[in-house]
């Protein structure tokens, strides 16, 4: 009887420990550059991408990885929020590798098609090699940056509650508040971003498989 209960306790403890490890992955935020005052002023060295802010109205830039499963939730939350605040210009900065053999798979992914279908007025920009992601400090897929008409950064961070989570969360709430023109969120810390890295470190690049 004692052995029986002991084995049950060992099993339960193992399940608990493994569950913690499992959850940690989904709730571990990705890397994100610090809050900035406004739209980047340094020279844009990207030779393939032009990310230009609309000076007449707020601009939202969404950095997404077109093949990361977490993008599904980010796009769902983004389109829902932008739909309720139609005054902002939406730019989707879609990561593509510098030298992708199958470029069409990246540029015509299901997520890109979803954005095109749901928000035809949105501008889709292909960020080759993640140059713009570096420039804007948006190192993780799912990073949303919002700027007012004067170019002041009014929101930085993620709008999902976990990797691939579509539930209501503080990130998307604060994003909606910023788009509504409420200045209270401007100085707030960035909200956590959950998604695939847009820029690989040397270690990650060595460990990863080629596309």
């Amino acid at each position: 009887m004692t052995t029986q209960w002991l084995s049950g306790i060992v099993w339960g403890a193992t399940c608990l420990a493994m569950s913690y490890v499992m959850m940690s992955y989904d709730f571990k935020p990705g890397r994100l550059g610090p809050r900035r005052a406004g739209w980047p002023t340094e020279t844009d060295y990207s030779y393939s991408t032009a990310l230009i802010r609309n000076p007449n109205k707020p601009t939202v830039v969404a950095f997404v990885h077109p093949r990361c499963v977490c993008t599904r939730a980010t796009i769902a939350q983004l389109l829902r929020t932008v739909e309720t605040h139609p005054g902002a210009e939406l730019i989707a900065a879609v990561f593509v590798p510098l030298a992708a053999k199958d470029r069409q798979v990246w540029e015509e992914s299901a997520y890109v098609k979803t954005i095109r279908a749901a928000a035809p007025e949105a501008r889709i920009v292909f960020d080759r090699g993640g140059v713009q992601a570096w420039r804007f400090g948006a190192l993780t897929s799912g990073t949303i940056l919002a700027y007012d008409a004067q170019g002041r950064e009014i929101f930085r961070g993620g709008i999902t509650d976990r990797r691939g989570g579509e539930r209501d969360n503080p990130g998307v709430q604060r994003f909606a508040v910023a788009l509504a023109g409420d200045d209270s969120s401007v100085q707030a810390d960035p909200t956590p971003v959950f998604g695939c890295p847009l820029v690989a470190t040397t270690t990650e690049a060595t460990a990863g498989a080629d596309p």
Partner: protein
Amino acid sequence: MTTPAAAGRAEAIFHVDLDKIIHRTDRMFFWLLIGQWLFGIAIALIWSPRTWIAQYWSVHQHVLVAVFLGALFAAYPLYLIVRRPGTPYTRHMIAVGQMLQSALLVHVTGGRIETHFHVFGSLALLAFYRDWTVLITGSAVVYLDHLALGAWFPLSVYGVPVASMWRSVEHAFWVAFEAIFLTMSCRTGIRELRAIAGREVRLQDASEALEEANRTLEAHVDERTQALRHAKDTLEDKIKELELLNSVMMDREERIIELKEALKVLQAKIPNSTDNG
């Protein structure tokens, strides 16, 4: 009027029937746990097969979690079902494993609200055991899972970064809501099972009484048949005897007739004795 012996027999029948239900439910969970494990892997492969770091990919952790953690959640209950079927310990561990698999499915589907229905479905399936204590174990696992996740990753459970314990209580209330009615259903099920066992005993008794009456009747019939057969045999013997007697009588009658005929012939041949005298 139930005798102590009949009550004892009813109790024995009740336990045999309940044991059959428990073993059948164990077998159901054996296949369900395996099926859910495979389903979790399939969901992970469809929902999130790969994770990416820029242009590099690797297998998504959800797939690994569905394979290995899913196997871990199912393995111990499966082992107990095979080695110790029908025991209370086995079904309580099944309840733990089943609720953990619910948590796993919720996780690999990105915390979808719809997947939370699996928790309520699982509690209903555990009620098949008709053992309300198993529902307590299942509900406790759900509550502890919420408490632990709420403490470690509040966003995962409550959707807010800092959640009060009362949110856990609110979620637990809805689980308890179902568990209370399932408990009532379990207790009713047990009462009905006992009533059925009692009726079975009464039916057995009535059937035995009927068989006894039938046996007595058959014995009477056999006895009367024997007597009739004996009377018939005696009668047949008498008839045979009479027939024999009759035949002897007829022979004698014929002999008398013959003698009378012979006498007549003799009388005719003999002259009148008075004339000669």
